[in-house]
């Protein structure tokens, strides 16, 4: 049976993943809402995970280390979202804003 992965070249997945990552970079650099920045970070993490899984499926079918890595990426991303939202809520309670430009006291 011919699997799906044999009909689509690896480059296609890398291409989409590169575009997703770049969009995430643009979101982090241009948005000023803290939650919006967090969403862009999620886009980047997803792009990385797609890359991991694509490489694992195409080049490492016996050990599938990329697949394991993608699972860990998702777990760490979940922990990161929880912590970041806790910090954002804390900042909002003190400063009544989610705009990262107005929270610059940690900057020297």
């Amino acid at each position, binding site marked *: 049976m011919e699997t*799906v*992965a*044999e009909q*689509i*070249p*690896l480059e*296609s997945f890398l*291409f*989409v993943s*590169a*575009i*997703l*990552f*770049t*969009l995430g*970079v*643009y979101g982090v*650099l*241009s*948005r*000023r*809402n*803290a*939650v*919006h920045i967090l*969403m*862009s970070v*999620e*886009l980047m993490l997803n792009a990385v*995970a*797609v890359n991991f*899984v*694509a*490489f694992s*499926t*195409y*080049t490492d*079918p*016996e*050990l*599938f280390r990329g697949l394991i890595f993608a*699972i*860990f990426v*998702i*777990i760490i*991303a*979940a*922990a990161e*979202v*929880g*912590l970041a*939202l*806790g*910090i954002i*809520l*804390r900042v*909002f309670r003190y400063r009544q*804003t989610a*705009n990262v*430009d107005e929270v610059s006291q940690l900057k020297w």
Partner: protein
Amino acid sequence: MTVAEVVFYVLAGLTIAAAIGVVTVPNVVHAALFLILALLGVAGFYILLSSEFLALVQILIYAGTVSVLMLLALMLTRGAEQNLPTVPSGGQWPLGLAASTVIAIALLIAVLDSNWPGDTGQVTIVSLETLAGALFRDWLLPFEVVSIVLLIALIGAVILAHEDEREV
């Protein structure tokens, strides 16, 4: 053009369009909804790459939990004077666009110019049993460490978001 290719291109277009929506729409709630769409598209990629378990995890954790958490945070960080959390995007977007365009060009050139392996036709599907065996035997130590990380993150999030009576 085979069915798989059609599915791939539809998924790719959907995911990239949703991702563009995430980073360009001014309304943050709409961006969160676009994010759900993009994450579901990524789950579709996982299915195409024959890792169904990861697709399920993606839908459960990302499209389900993370997106709901984002929407909850948006509700809680709403400004008192405005109905929707519209923070102006600031004057950095031309610089951001330039920087990300440079990164995009570099990445795409790297993708197109390299000789990637994998066209050997030796793709095997990883079954759920094999995956679980590897995760709980070969990768047991990272698995336990990451569970401790999750526990610490959970406690930290509760402490951070906890209402402190002395300061109110």
